[in-house]
């Protein structure tokens, strides 16, 4: 009798977007003193966001399988989606303000 192999989204994808999210936050705090840290932070955050969406996409497909098995990463990712959007909005505000400021300065 063969065992049922449960289907779930790959954990490495979940961890990877968390890592990028963490890097993005660290860069925002400018702990390494990088210039243009906001853009780098947004870039990392965009990668994290895309990976999260891919993760959710995979989950949506797999969830139709009879062997699908949900775990903690799924509800957590749904919460994180909101967090990522808010964080993305914040970064957009910061960068958008800077860009607007640049345009403002160049208008003189």
């Amino acid at each position, binding site marked *: *009798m*063969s*065992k*049922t*192999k449960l*289907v779930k*989204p*790959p954990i490495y994808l979940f961890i990877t977007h968390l890592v990028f999210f963490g890097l993005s936050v660290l860069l925002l705090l400018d702990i390494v003193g990088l210039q243009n840290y906001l853009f780098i932070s*947004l870039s990392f*955050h*965009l990668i994290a*966001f*895309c990976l*999260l*969406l*891919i993760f*959710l*996409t*995979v*989950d*949506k*497909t*797999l*969830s*139709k*399988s*009879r*062997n699908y098995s949900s775990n903690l990463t799924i509800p957590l990712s749904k919460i994180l989606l909101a967090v990522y*959007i808010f964080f*993305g*909005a914040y*970064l*957009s*505000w910061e*960068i*958008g*303000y800077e*860009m*607007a*400021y640049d*345009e*403002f*300065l160049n208008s*003189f």
Partner: protein
Amino acid sequence: MNFLTVFKKKYLLIFFLLSFSITSVLPIKSHAEEPQEQWEKDLTTCVNQKKEVSIHISVDTSQSTASTDPNNLRGASAYALTIGLQKITQDLLQSEYENIGMEISWSNFSNTSIIVLPWTDLTKSSLTLSNLQDEINLVNKNDAGTEYLTALNTINEMFNTKKFNNSCEILIFMSDGEPYDSFPQIGSEFENLRSKGMFLFGVHLGNKDDIVYLQTFLGESTNYTISGTGSYSSPSIYLKSKVFLAENATDLLNAFLNVLDQLRAASYNQTKNVLPEEETIICTESNECSYEISVGVGTQTAVVRMTISNPGNIGDINLWIEPPPALNISNNLISIPPDGVKSTQFGDTQIGVEWYSDELGEITIKFDPDKNSWVGSWKFSLKSNSPQNRNVTWNTKLFTKLIPKIPNSVPLRIGQEQCIDISYPGEILPPNAEVKLLVVDPSDGTILKSINASEIPRGHRACLTPDETFPYKVKLQTEILYEPSKGNKEFADVATTDVIEVLEAPIYNNIIGPLSDDKQIFKGNQNVEFEFEFQAGNIDSILNIDINQLSTNLSPTVNWYIEYKGDIYQLGTEDFPIKVIANDNEVIKLIGDPFEARNLDTDTFYEINFKSSIPSISAAEEVKTFQINSRFLDVPFNTVLKYVLIIFLLFLLSGLLVSNVYSRINSGLVFDKNLRFKSYPFRILDNLNIDFISDNFYEDSFDNTRILSTGNKRVSLSGSTSVQFNQKLIPFIQESTASIVSKTLFISGFNKSPEQKMQINPDINNLWVFEIESSNEESVLGNLIVVSNNEQTFNTIKDNVATSIRLINFQDLVVSTKTKKELKKKDFTIKGTGKEKGEVKTIEPPSTTSPGSGTPPPPPGSGTPPPPPGSGTPPPPPG
């Protein structure tokens, strides 16, 4: 041996009788107002230059001296001079003054001459009255005639053998009469001595008319032609000669002491100040008979000489000294016994009293120049229980040396007043001083300006303001005329500064700006800069800066900074003042750092004050004020919002796009590996039973199925039916679906009425499709397509198909087929029955017991038991 006793019985009454009549011609009668004689100046200069003195005393011991010097004061005089010089020399060794080396020798002469005292270095000697007694006796002799040439031979011999090679040579030649030997020869010998630059001091004892012999031989006078053995007149005046007249023995002693006084003044580089002679009586202890002098700042030594009338100090006279009260001397010290005192301390002074003869005594007072308690009135009196109508003549010489101090270097700048303080030892002002500060041209010593100084508590102060007439370099020096004693004016030493460079007139800092007249805009939180050109003056200065806002608008607070020479200074902090180096030219940046960004409709004006001051000149500040204009502007909110929305939407769209693309590439149908399927053709006739044309599905097993050729996005089930994955726009939110798409009508587990397209779950591991190929009123032809991943699923489908078929209204199926598709006008042939086409029948749902061709379907659950969930091949990889 008591010195007094030696001479007590040997005095000459005639000298006493004549003493008052001749005092006017003696040097001791001179007083301060008298100009210094040339020999005195020359002697002082020589001693200061050579620092060594060789003195030879040549004493006449001819028979005539028995009458002219009955008390043998010649020896006492030589002794007094020798001991006095020894004391001066040895005092100098212990003082801060430069040492003066002195050597002395004695000789006597009559018709022969002998060396009485060979050259004796007074810096090392310890001569006393007792160990000089033999020498004193030798010069007190009186025998034979007077022959100068023998004396001159000895004199020449002595100066040729002196120990100090480069010394001032002084000859003290004492005689009481006309020589017997050749006048021209004597004159020649003295001229020879003159040619050596020797100081020639003659002391003529006796008849005043005979003084011309010595005056002529020594060159003091050219008025006479002296005759004796031959005749002689001096060819010229010799300025380094001086002949003293001593009409009595006491005068002789005074004459020697005058030489001593001059050597003292020269050795200490002091000014000799002779006070007017006064006479008092000698009184009893209860009476007052004092002689008073006033001693002021600058006096270093006072020598008070006492000449007592006959019978002199016969051992009954006490000297009373009453110093100024500030010295605070006890009463038992102020009385000095008749035999004098070698040295005693009177507070800040040192006093010595010595009686050289019964008639002549001397008080020497040394004042501490760094103290002032001794300044004031000093009283002296001689008292005896039996005064015997004796008088005492007081002759005082004050040796003064006031050394003022001024700074070595004083900054002088054209147009800038500078005050120079003149101070004195002990910080006591010299009395009645006329103090001037002279500005001297150091190149030629000319006095450019004389400034009267005014008194300040600790000295004098003179202020001058150099002008354009001043040369490039000057020297300042003092000219101080003061009263060391009442009524006597003396010049103090001259204090000079180093050569001072007179600096050009001060130029103050110049500030120009702002270099750009443009209004500076505070853009958001950004700093603004205003530049000023700064030209430092020619003197080091300090710069203070403050700034005030003139406009009363809602401008935010601004932190202002100054950038000067690369350094940043914050206004209003201890960073200021800035030290400015002379002649620096820099651009000063005024930097404004706003606390916050703000949008204002009006300009904001500020006033900036540059305050320069030159501490070395004064604390006064020169203020230069500038007005600067600025405007506070910030980023418009709509611009910010525009950029924020663009970036945020790009962010969201990027995620959406990526997920969508990913889904398009990787998402698809869900099925196990090696998914199997099988198609079962059937027909349904009038009896509404399903008649499987080939294999009977209900009797078939999973093992008879075939591997389904699968695709990620699409799986073809037959020529007309397939399953397709439905791509979602937002695949991470939208549920994944697939669709069964067919060219014909079909019924599946998902739809009970015939459809050509049906949305289903993308998991196709358990799927059956009842595909209708054709139908008419009599029969329906089609295929039952079964897709399963294992046997259990296969069996489950059997149940589902059986159950589902019962519910199908085949009449409707036919109608629907006609109306929707018109069955493409395709006739179909019922395989295995041979019935005509066009027969329409209601299809009965299949029953497990229903009749029909083939073996009736097995009851649910029959056959091999279904595999457990999850059995079979594993699912495909995600997506």
